[in-house]
């Protein structure tokens, strides 16, 4: 008997039990849909996050105070640490300490809200240097100007606001020259940023920028920094610069043992590998959950195949009388279960791709970036292979049982 005949027989018998076939494959459809969503959204999220990091610039090194966080709870420790001070910045600026340094900018984060004429809004408030925005992120003022070194030296009460902040506080009217209040202190708006959305890790539209010295002295009352951003001369020199930074800061802090560091550096490369590790672990975890759902689906298939074999006992007897061998019967039922699960897999792939597309639109909306959806071919191939495999594994036992049925007993079966 040709293999084509087996396929034909299997197709005919699945067609004659349409509703049952559809209900049976539901478990597989859901399982494969989940695989597709997990893999595809995981990939899309990874691409988007990596894109963000890419936006941060390969030359950028971020120095943070405290111990390197090993988990989410360590981040608070980093924000509370006061190890990065002005004298560290001065030391890093020395070209004999860090020769490949192109630019350096300390930063502080100010918690709180801004208000103007009764309107209050809570943006992200940074004490920073404005030159960094221009040099590193290509963000330029839309109206007015950015503050400069002078403003930082004189601790001027000036602010640059993002497009969304401007809209929230001023609506359509002009913002330049107006005084906004942060923690009851007046800041004169000297510049606004055109709508840009996400740049690097920040939503520029939602930012208020102050000179870091002003924020340190008048708003926070601290003499240290939350973060220091260093630009290397080019991306090739990042690693060498990190080594120089570590050496300089250890000298400044009198640290001999690197494990006792009270600061750490973050580079694009490091973040990429970290995020890949996190997403990889998440994907594995979700895949295990999906695998369990597929096993459940497979048991459903096995169950219905047993029912089908019993129900069609006479058919099996008849087929044997008409010349079917045990092998023919085995392959017929095996083909049926593989066909069932493969059809389920195909439907799951299409559904999964659909949901993943919708999901990627959601992610894009949430992160304010363009939709970065790609049909996950590898997930589709995996899904189809897995579904066929489930059919094979869970179909073999019922099919064996069918093939072993005695022809006469089967023909007598009521």
């Amino acid at each position: 008997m040709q293999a084509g005949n087996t396929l034909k027989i299997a197709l005919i018998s699945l067609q004659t039990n349409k509703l049952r076939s559809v209900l049976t494959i539901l478990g597989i459809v859901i399982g494969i849909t989940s695989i597709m969503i997990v893999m595809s959204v995981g990939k899309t999220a990874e691409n988007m996050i990596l894109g963000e990091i890419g936006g941060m610039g390969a030359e950028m090194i971020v120095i943070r105070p405290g111990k390197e966080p090993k988990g989410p709870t360590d981040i608070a420790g980093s924000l509370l640490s006061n190890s990065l001070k002005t004298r560290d910045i001065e030391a890093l600026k020395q070209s004999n300490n860090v020769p490949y340094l192109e630019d350096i900018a300390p930063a502080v984060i100010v918690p709180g809200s801004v208000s103007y004429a009764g309107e209050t809004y809570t943006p992200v408030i940074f004490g920073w240097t404005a030159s960094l925005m221009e040099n590193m992120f290509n963000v330029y003022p839309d109206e007015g100007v950015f503050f400069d070194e002078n403003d930082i030296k004189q601790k001027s009460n000036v602010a640059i606001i993002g497009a969304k902040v401007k809209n929230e506080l001023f609506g359509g009217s002009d913002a330049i020259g107006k005084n906004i209040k942060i923690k009851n202190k007046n800041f004169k708006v000297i510049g606004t940023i055109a709508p840009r959305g996400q740049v690097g890790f920040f939503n520029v539209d939602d930012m208020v920028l102050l000179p870091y010295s002003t924020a340190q002295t008048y708003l926070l009352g601290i003499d240290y920094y939350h973060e220091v951003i260093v630009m290397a001369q080019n991306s090739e020199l990042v690693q060498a610069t990190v080594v120089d930074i570590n050496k300089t800061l250890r000298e400044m802090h009198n640290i001999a043992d690197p494990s006792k560091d009270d600061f750490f550096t973050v580079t694009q490369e490091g973040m990429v590998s970290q995020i890949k590790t996190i997403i990889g672990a998440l994907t594995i975890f979700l895949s295990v959950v999906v695998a369990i759902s597929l096993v459940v689906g497979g048991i459903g298939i096995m169950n219905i195949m047993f029912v089908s074999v019993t129900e069609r006992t006479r058919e099996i007897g008849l087929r044997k009388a008409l010349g079917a061998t045990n092998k023919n019967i085995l392959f017929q039922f095996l083909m049926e279960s593989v066909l069932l699960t493969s059809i389920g897999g195909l439907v799951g792939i299409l559904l999964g791709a659909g949901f993943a597309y919708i999901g990627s639109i959601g992610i894009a909306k949430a992160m304010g970036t363009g939709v970065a959806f790609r049909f996950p071919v590898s997930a589709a191939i995996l899904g189809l292979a897995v579904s066929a495999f489930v059919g094979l594994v869970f179909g073999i036992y019922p099919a064996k049982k069918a093939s072993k049925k005695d022809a006469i007993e089967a023909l007598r079966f009521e």
Partner: protein
Amino acid sequence: MPLIEVNNLKKRYSIDDLETPALQGVSLDVEEGEFIAIIGPSGSGKSTLLHILGFLDRPTEGEYKFEGKTIDDYSEEELASVRNKKMGFVFQSFNLLPRTNILENVKLPLMYSDISEKEWNSMAIKAIESVGLSHRIGHDPSQLSGGERQRTAIARALIMNPQIIFADEPTGNLDTKTGDSIMAIFDKLNREEKHTLIIITHEKEIAEHADRIIHIKDGKIEYDISTNNHKK
């Protein structure tokens, strides 16, 4: 050489360690082109004999030669192949696949043959025509009368042009008139197309269509007689 040679055939079934004899030494020869009716009360062993003759079961003792080759020399695969190519089966309860139209039902044996799929349709249509069911070709068994269902089953048994057709109470589920029309088909198959036929029945009127009547009782042949039919 006879088509079928049976010598002292015995069959015992053991259910829960209890041995039930079904055949207790049956001997008979069947020549090609014969039309034989096996009659006997229920439980006499006639179905068991038919199953063994039809390669669906193996004897416990004794010898069964089909085309001169003893059944012990056939592997399971070869038995299946002989059933497919050289034997046709007609059952009391028709055994048609539900929700599958007449054409596909009749094609069933072809799926286990080496015949190319291109010829399936024309072969099935020819077989359906020969039992006078051309107008029902696309119908499902549920839309057919009992007689039409049995004619479909006969078409299915004929499609491979087998040497021998076994029919197990083919008219048992039909009224007398319909039964007669089915027997008319069997008569034609034997007289005109020279198919060897073995029919099991418990009705004397049906048995009288045959050339030879074998009466079985308690697993033994009680008598084996020729009728005058072949002279007609």
